């Protein structure tokens, strides 16, 4: 049963062009062919709507479906999958669903934080955190295990969440001039990165490269001067 958008149905996404969390919602909606209105937020000057729709965190992304707001990107992804059930993001089987949720949570709650720390730590701490990062990436490398995508033959929930690894990690690495996340160490993940970044709709939903590079450079400069 495929729910199509009627005149009365309204889907709005509040996001920012550079946020992997916001971009993953765009991707999910596009994968399912759901028409939506996109509102670009200026995080230094948040709109009254954003503050109204996500008072708990005041963060993007927020999906508003027929005036009902949902926040937290993975919660939004599950909601989208339940409302529009064409091109499913999550598998049907309860155990496969549990595994997808597990790895999604692992990426957002562990891997991203470790990566941030590893990028900006110094000396001995940097060594230790980088080692932790390698261990975490090894789990993801093993999870792919001969599959084209985390979701199997087509992209699924974990792939959508992991796009932050496919696109944001190499970009930040380029700006920082580090080479911790390499094809040599993670051949399976890099093969996956190549495959996923060949997909048209994925590329439609990624920040434009030059603009993104400039943005990341500026953010890193800000962080460096803030810590001095």
């Amino acid at each position: 049963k495929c729910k199509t958008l009627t005149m009365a149905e309204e889907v709005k996404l509040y996001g920012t062009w550079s946020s992997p969390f916001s971009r993953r919602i765009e991707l999910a909606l596009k994968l399912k062919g759901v028409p939506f209105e996109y509102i670009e937020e200026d995080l230094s000057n948040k709109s009254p709507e954003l503050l109204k729709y996500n008072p708990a965190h005041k963060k993007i992304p927020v999906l508003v479906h027929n005036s009902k707001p949902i926040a937290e990107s993975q919660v939004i992804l599950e909601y989208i999958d339940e409302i529009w059930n064409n091109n499913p993001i999550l598998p049907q089987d309860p155990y496969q669903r549990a595994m997808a949720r597990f790895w999604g949570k692992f990426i957002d709650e562990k891997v991203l934080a470790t990566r941030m720390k590893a990028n900006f730590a110094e000396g001995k701490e940097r060594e230790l955190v980088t080692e932790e990062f390698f261990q975490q990436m090894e789990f993801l490398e093993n999870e792919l295990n001969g599959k084209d995508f985390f979701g199997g033959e087509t992209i699924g929930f974990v792939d959508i969440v992991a796009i932050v690894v496919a696109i944001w990690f190499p970009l930040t690495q380029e700006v920082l001039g580090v080479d911790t996340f390499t094809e040599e160490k993670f051949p399976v993940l890099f093969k996956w990165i190549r495959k996923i970044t060949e997909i048209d709709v994925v590329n439609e939903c990624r920040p434009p490269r030059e603009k993104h590079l400039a943005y990341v450079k500026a953010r890193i400069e800000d962080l460096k001067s803030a810590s001095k």
Partner: protein
Amino acid sequence: MAKEVTLLGFWASPFVFRVKVALQQKGVVDYEYIEEDIFNKSPRLLELNPVYKKVPVFIHGEKVVNESLIILEYIDETWQQNPLLPRDPYQRAMARFWAKYSEELMVKAFMALVLKGEAKEKNAKEFAEGLEKIEGEFKGKSGLLFAEGEGNIGYLELAFGWILYWLPVWEEAGSFQILDPQKFPVINEWSTKFVNHPLIKENLPARDRMLVYFRKLSEEFFTLFRA
């Protein structure tokens, strides 16, 4: 003869508690419960949860599921009687959102328990601010929410259980106070209903035992768990 379901747990864990109640509500009672010593983790625990090395670990036949909220969803999808999550997708999203919010808040409350001085105060303050949002959100809604069916416990209640029962113990053990009944009437009323629900009551760890344990944790956390 091996049982179909096994749960690795720890008696004081609010996470393990969630799974126990969920199983009981679903009528899954003939399972093996194994008490883990979390200060001396078994090879089996480390093997079955290599990513986090924590309890609960839920084993169903050949399948192993980790992370308590994920386990709850697995249980709800596998045994469909007496649902934990609401049927309506928007209500489900709300339950998941607030459960996640509560997990983030728990970190702050736990830090208030185990840290000292300024760091303790900072975490307690941030925790209080977060708790106020929950108080505000659930004002006017009577306790025992988001469950389908009379007398059932819901996913969100189980997610919030640590606020409703563990938190007062942590406050006493860690010498900080947030849950003023004047400031948090909704949560206080909710706690009372929660701890008196028959399914909940019989799965709650004894308060005095918890107090001893969490007092010790408060004093010795950083030596007990080499961070």
